[in-house]
């Protein structure tokens, strides 16, 4: 068929549909909602899963993270509990045996995390003191903004040096350059040697309120050896006459491997090793790559569910179109008879009605695409959720709407074409 003729038929179809604007509009609604919801839901889902995956990727796909977990409290309430010391968690032994026995290990990074207060002159902030190795920036997502990070000599000599997060430094030293200044933590003073910005996980960035109540990142990094000797291993907290103590050697061990393949091999080995070293489950093993895989699996299931809902809504929309087209065929029986008498072949009638159906569904699809693109943008803007509109979802949703038009248009169109011209002409 020539292009010009097809354009004429499409013009004719649009003209016929515009004869009943309300009806055509309502018929398109089904497809509009179907297409719009597919694109919008996919965009929101894609955005959510992207954020989750990014968070997991920040943990490092070639890493395994071990964390100390306070085991279920066995002590009973009462006087006897007052001098109870809760002794749990990962140990230096764990870190050393992992480094020495597990194949493929690149770095083992032990960490202690202590709640302390940091003071400079009269300014004071509650912070997290992180005792760690100089290797920390290699594994964590950390930008060194000024000065340097901790050095191996600091570790070896138990130097009283520290590195501050920039937001903390800005609040502690509003008018001075923090580098080479001394801050006090506990009974000791520490020299500030560097400023860093954490770019990693939200929950790894402990926050505290600044003077105006805004949240800031407040981490202080000190050498692990310094942390051990200055703060000790027992952390005591007193409150309202009761006394609680925790004895934890290491709060976290991050293990980095040469490759992600090595991670898979090492996971069961590390679990066995820890089971051997620990009598109670006072640790957890986080494998980012497994989390990533789970997240992808979840996303796949989500997409299947979404796809089914979308398919159903588009089918419902298609049935709506078919219904209206069948009514239209009955209503326009006379016109069909006239056209047949004036030389239209069955195929011409089929084309005419099929084009009308496709114009309805593709028109609905187009409006749906526009709405489906606008909605995620609005969601991003107002609900502060990340949304990603994939071109593929737009193409698929639009393509399906066109296909729905063809599939659900064939039956009414063939009904129209099969009318007997004489009967059709006689139809009132």
């Amino acid at each position, binding site marked *: 068929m*020539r292009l*010009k*003729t097809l354009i*004429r038929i499409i013009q004719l179809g649009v*003209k*016929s549909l515009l*004869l009943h604007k309300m009806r055509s509009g309502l018929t398109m609604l089904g497809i509009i909602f179907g297409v719009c919801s597919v694109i919008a839901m996919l965009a929101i889902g894609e955005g959510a899963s992207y954020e989750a995956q990014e968070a997991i990727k920040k943990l490092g796909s070639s890493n395994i993270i071990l964390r100390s977990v306070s085991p279920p409290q066995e002590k009973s309430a009462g006087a006897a509990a007052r001098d109870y010391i809760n002794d749990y968690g990962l140990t230096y032994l764990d870190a050393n045996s992992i480094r020495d026995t597990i194949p493929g290990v690149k770095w083992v990074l032990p960490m202690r995390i202590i709640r302390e207060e940091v003071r400079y002159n009269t300014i004071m902030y509650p912070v997290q003191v992180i005792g760690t190795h100089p290797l920390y920036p290699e594994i964590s997502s950390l930008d060194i903004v000024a000065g340097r990070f901790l050095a191996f000599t600091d570790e070896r000599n138990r130097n009283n040096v520290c590195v501050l997060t920039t937001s903390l430094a800005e609040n502690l030293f509003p008018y001075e350059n923090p580098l080479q200044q001394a801050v006090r933590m506990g009974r000791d003073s520490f020299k500030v040697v560097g400023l860093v910005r954490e770019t990693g996980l939200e929950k790894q960035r402990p926050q505290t309120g600044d003077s105006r109540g805004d949240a800031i990142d407040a981490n202080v990094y000190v050498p692990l050896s310094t942390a051990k000797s200055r703060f000790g291993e027992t952390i005591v907290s007193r409150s309202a006459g009761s006394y609680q103590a925790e004895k934890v050697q290491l709060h976290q061990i991050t293990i980095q491997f040469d490759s992600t393949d090595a991670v898979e091999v090492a996971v069961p080995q590390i679990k066995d090793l820890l089971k051997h070293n620990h009598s109670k489950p006072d640790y957890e093993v986080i494998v980012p790559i497994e989390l990533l895989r789970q997240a992808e699996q979840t996303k796949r299931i989500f997409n299947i569910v979404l796809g089914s809902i979308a398919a159903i809504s588009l089918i419902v929309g298609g049935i709506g179109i078919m219904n209206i087209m069948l009514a239209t065929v009955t209503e326009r029986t*006379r*016109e069909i*008879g*006239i*056209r*047949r*008498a*004036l*030389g*239209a*072949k*069955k*195929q*011409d009638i089929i084309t005419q009605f099929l084009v009308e159906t496709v114009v309805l569904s593709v028109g609905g699809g187009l409006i749906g695409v526009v709405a489906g693109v606008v909605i995620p943008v609005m969601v991003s803007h107002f609900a502060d959720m990340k949304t990603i509109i994939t071109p593929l979802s737009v193409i698929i949703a639009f393509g399906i709407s066109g296909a729905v038009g063809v599939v659900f248009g064939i039956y009414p169109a063939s009904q129209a074409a099969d009318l007997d*011209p*004489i009967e059709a*002409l006689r139809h009132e």
Partner: protein
Amino acid sequence: MSNREIIRIENLVKTYHMGDVDVHALNGVNLAIEEGSYVAIMGASGSGKSTLLNMLGCLDRASSGHYYLGGRDVSTMDDDQLSAYRGQKLGFVFQSYNLIQQLTVIENIFVPLFYQGLDLADRYDHCKQLAELVGLGDRLDHRPKQLSGGQQQRVAIARSLVNDPLLILADEPTGNLDSKTGVEILELFDRLHSEGKTLVLVTHGNEVADRAQREIVMKDGVVYREETKRAPVKVAKEFEIG
């Protein structure tokens, strides 16, 4: 020299199956119509005249017998061939005008050419001339609803001429019109005939039949009586046979 035959019908039979009963609408019709004729087909209802018109219009196929239109045996054509042949060789005028409501006057006139794969832009002048011929040159962009019955029938006549047909078939063309408008339409037919068009009218009004050059009366599915009053006119354009 007599005019050539445009239609030849040989022993045409049409039987409808109504449940267990067979109804013979046409019972062996023999008929020949020459070009330049103006034929009125008359008869009571049930006489078979509508069925004959459907046959002549290639809208229906006979149970047996032959129908030659412009030298070709229509009774052997399939549905698509019939459609194409209708579009190229026939012009229809119906009792109830049968214009397409969503199209304008000029678009309605163009419809038969559309199904021959032509473009309105290329044939606009031709369609406009026909509209002027029937006195609607100033109504090209009106829709059927904006026109009176007589005007609609004029559009239908213009439409029946657009493909330069072998013959024009008219089914009670004045049936829905008041007598004054009806006369105007019939005068238009007279003019078309005098200009060399071949016309076949189905009617049961004598005033219509009186204008015709030849009268055929149907009864019980056969040609009951026929009368030729005048000789056919000289045709404006000779059709190609075959």
